[in-house]
């Protein structure tokens, strides 16, 4: 069931006609990935629902004692910038790897820059976790803290997974070249990375900023 070329075949950046069969092939695998992402979104939704039903107790340190405003701002900046650089990576692939033998240096540069920004995010998030635990807010202290740690931690795990996936793609692209397999992997990874930034919008708005208000 292939739509006429030129038209977008799946939500997300399409490879386009100049990629020939790779473009058509992407339809099934990217749609399948959307199904996964949407079910992952439901998982995040449930963690949010649990978080929404808890509140900081008087017994333990609350958001104002535990959250580091500057660090949250840094994490948000890192993730938003990395979302753009991942977009640059997938755009480079689309625009320059339609034919054969295009230079992969630019693509690898954007991918590694994304990894670097992702690591910056993780570094700040993990330091925050450590200082939260030190300030008397480990996940075992209250229901609110359990929900907070598991929601933010689940997102952090996803980011870690995204970084590892990106590194695998970098190696694959360098060893095998930008062939169909890695093109489809890149399309899906870029969607995943943007998706994580969308989830982060909810986390920084409702969990962190909402808690600090």
């Amino acid at each position, binding site marked *: *069931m292939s*739509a006429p070329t030129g*038209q*977008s*075949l*799946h*939500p*997300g*950046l*399409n490879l386009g006609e100049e990629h020939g069969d790779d473009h058509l092939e992407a339809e099934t695998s990217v*749609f399948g990935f*959307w*199904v996964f992402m*949407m*079910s992952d*979104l*439901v998982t995040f*939704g*449930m963690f*949010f*629902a*649990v978080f*929404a*039903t808890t509140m900081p107790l008087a017994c333990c340190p609350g958001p104002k004692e535990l959250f580091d*405003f500057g660090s949250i*701002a840094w994490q*948000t*900046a890192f993730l*938003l910038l990395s*979302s*753009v650089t991942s*977009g*640059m990576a997938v*755009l480079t692939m*689309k*625009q320059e790897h339609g034919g054969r033998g295009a230079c992969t240096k630019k693509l690898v540069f954007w991918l590694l820059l994304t990894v670097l920004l992702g690591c910056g995010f993780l570094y700040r998030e993990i330091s925050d976790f450590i200082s939260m635990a030190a300030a008397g807010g480990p996940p075992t202290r209250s229901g609110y803290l359990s929900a907070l740690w598991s929601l933010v931690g689940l997102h952090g795990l996803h980011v870690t997974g995204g970084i590892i996936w990106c590194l695998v793609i970098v190696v694959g692209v360098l060893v095998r070249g930008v062939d169909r397999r890695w093109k489809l992997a890149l399309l899906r990874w870029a*969607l995943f990375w*943007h*998706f994580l*930034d*969308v989830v982060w*919008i*909810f986390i920084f*708005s*409702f969990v962190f*900023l*909402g808690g*600090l*208000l």
Partner: protein
Amino acid sequence: MKKSKELHHYLTGFALAAVLTIIPFTLVATVGGARSYIVLVLCAILQVIVHLRFFLHLSFRGQQKEDLQLVLFTGFILFLMIGGTIWVLGDLYTRM
């Protein structure tokens, strides 16, 4: 021409997302209060739309029907599960 248009698309999305991030952060840092919460929610919703439109390229023009159904159904499930959880537990809380 088409190439620079695609790049422009990402950069527009970035500019909009950056503004919609800076607004809530400045509000929380300076003003605070319950009134800011409305702006916070508004900015979050707008930014999600910006991300979907400019980064995830979600547009339903010329899309096959299943894509739209997938996203809408997920939205529906989320609404039921999150809304239901908050409703039931909120109700219990007021009865306690």
